[in-house]
């Protein structure tokens, strides 16, 4: 299948390894992956912050960029959720029925990675090896709007060497919420504190999820506390193999060091 990678602006700009991992998993399963360079950002941040006017050109660009792909796959549930549940409404509100129709068509072939693997391809065993203690945080958009269900945990259970530990109160939001993390930073932090304490209670080395945004928030809090547990995107775990394992990323230095991050590692 020719898959268009909807890499998301956050992965593109901040977490290229997650994009790389998504490609590796799909290619390993025999699919041809292409990155349409016309994509930038799906517009979710603008839409969810109330900037519908600014989002509309981004929506139009995104719909055009992914025309012609049999399937579009993203390592993010919230970005897929935006395409699936917000695009057509936004286009209709702007009076652009043609765009709305194109958006509905695109939505029907846009998938979050785990739902694509399990739901569309029917695969749970992707040949991954990841010998670490891992806990899984179901991000709100994968849990509710997308209803990916147990797809991510089925994938994780099939990973050789991986010890999956259940996260208590896993279904509770981590407190990220896009610009909520800035506009309501105190409440966001209060929610993060509770999520972190639950992650730490599992004794996991790694907390994983299907969205880099929530992981950036949870991981940022854990790093600040020197808590040890690290965020690793689901795609990076699935991409890891015996011959080329994904390393657990380094913790931030607990005391300032004079050299670069690379030396620390």
């Amino acid at each position, binding site marked *: 299948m020719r898959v268009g990678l909807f890499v998301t602006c956050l992965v593109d700009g901040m977490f290229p390894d997650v994009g790389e991992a998504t490609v590796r998993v799909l290619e390993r399963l025999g699919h041809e992956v292409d990155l349409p360079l016309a994509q930038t950002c799906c517009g979710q941040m603008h839409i969810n912050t*109330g900037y519908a006017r600014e989002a509309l050109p*981004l929506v139009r660009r995104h719909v055009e960029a992914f025309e012609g792909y049999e399937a579009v796959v993203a390592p993010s549930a919230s970005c897929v959720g935006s395409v699936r*549940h917000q695009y057509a409404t936004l286009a209709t*509100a702007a009076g652009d029925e043609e765009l709305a129709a194109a958006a509905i068509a695109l939505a029907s072939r846009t998938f979050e990675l785990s739902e694509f693997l399990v739901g569309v391809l029917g695969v749970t065993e992707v040949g991954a090896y990841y010998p670490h203690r891992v806990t899984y945080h179901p991000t709100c958009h994968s849990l509710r709007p997308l209803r990916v269900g147990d797809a991510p945990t089925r994938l994780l259970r099939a990973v050789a060497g991986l010890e999956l530990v259940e996260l208590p109160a896993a*279904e509770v939001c981590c407190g990220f919420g*896009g610009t909520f993390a800035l506009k309501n930073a105190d409440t966001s932090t209060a929610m993060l504190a509770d999520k972190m304490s639950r992650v730490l209670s599992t004794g996991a080395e790694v907390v994983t999820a299907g969205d880099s945004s929530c992981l950036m928030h949870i991981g940022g809090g854990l790093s600040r506390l020197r808590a040890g547990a690290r965020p690793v995107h689901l795609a990076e775990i699935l991409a890891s193999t015996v011959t080329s394992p994904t390393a657990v990323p380094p913790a*931030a230095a607990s005391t300032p060091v004079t050299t*670069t991050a690379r030396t620390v590692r």
Partner: protein
Amino acid sequence: MTQAGPTPPATFLGLPTAAPPSAPRGVGMLRGDEPFPAAARRALGDAQLRRNLGKATTTIRGRRASVVAELDDWERLRAAGAAIKDDVLAHLDDYLVRLEQQVTARGGVVHWARDAHEANQIVVDLVRATGADEVVKVKSMVTQEIGLNEALADVGVAAWETDLAELIVQLGHDRPSHIVVPAIHRNRAEIRDIFVREMGTTGGVPAPAGLTDEPRALAEAARRHLRQRFLSARVAISGANFAVAETGTLAVVESEGNGRMCLTLPDTLITVMGLEKIVPTWRDLEVFLQLLPRSATGERMNPYTSMWTGVTPGDGPRAFHLVLLDNGRTATLADPAGRAALRCIRCAACLNVCPVYERTGGHAYGSVYPGPIGAVLSPQLTGVTDNPSLPYASTLCGACLDACPVAIDIPSMLVHLRAKVVDADRGAGHRPTAEQAVMTTAAWTMAKPRRWARTLRAARLGRLLGRRRGTISRLPPPLAAWTASRDLPLPPSESFRDRWSRRQASAGGPDGSGGHDPQDGPDGPDGPDGPDELDGPDGRTPR
């Protein structure tokens, strides 16, 4: 029809010539004194409050989940509830007139109030006409919404709350913080102190000597205190959970029986009701009397469901008045993307599952309607410019939509209202806010892929900020709000698109000249990243 106010309000049930009015300022409890983030910040610092809320919401959540799971037709019940309410909203003009006819035919008197001022004035006049200087009250959200107790106090009429939790709130000179459990923010010890301090003032039966904070003792003290109020009051005031248009029947659903005392003992009963509380037929109650108790308190059946139709000689109140209140509801109805908020049956299931509400409590929302439903209802009743922070008081996690018994898509509505807030701000003509500038710039950057690629390359400079710890711990505003509690990873030395382009180019040509040079622009502080690492099996980049 008894009219109140100078203009016949029936005019705006026809074709309105102007935008329907919002709930007026300066009356009632729909607006807070400060924006949500500031109020939330203070609430978050109250460890006692957070413990109470965490305990209470967890308990109700669990109970609700188990009784909902018992019904295999729950989703169909939800759909039915939503459909009935949507029908009511689509034909509200017809149903309201039918309700008025039925109530009038059965000996009740119907009054129409455009807003809180009119409703309060109607009730004040009705109470004064009886000569009473006190009233007993059934727990009601709508009378809190319009500030009725304050309006009555202004003319020397004492309004006694008889719902146990509302009594605690009233005696504590406090505000309700939850729709169903108004004193959820108080614990037993606090309640005991309030009873001891306040019950004996204003001529009430005082708390017994040596009152403990045992629930039974507290309930007994409240019972003795309230009994005197029930027996002396000649006027009662209630809200309504439902009004059946077909029969003119009003329904109040409560747990203690105190509501029923108010509804049956006094001579005069005045019911204030938001005009969306209608159900078309008696049979429709079947749906809601299943949805409401399971969603609200996690009970299969509601303990005290009182229904009355007009007046019945020799049984119950001799005079019954129904005040139909708009107060921003018609304005809410006018917005196709917002009107579903009027389906709400005030069960508070969305509050109990909301991770934001659980941590901040209800007072932070400023309005008597807190939590997710409050965040969509309050700004619509007042107009978004009076409650601009509420639509942002959510992570859009979606737990509220799943819990809502009438399937109100609160997350989508929040997003819709955020756009109204931004547009109202832009329309106001003042200088663009910092947020607007950031959002506009971001959209501009993302409008063209080459511009976006260049921006990501420039972002590598951000690596300088975290060279000491290998992560970024401090940023200037507005990102200081992020780094106050969270580190930020270093930007990678190469964006994904540059990495991809370079890989495609090296696969297609000997020197990668087919694409742009991914190494143009400044190198990060780590120096150039070798192609060996970037092309390695996992393409790891230090974060």
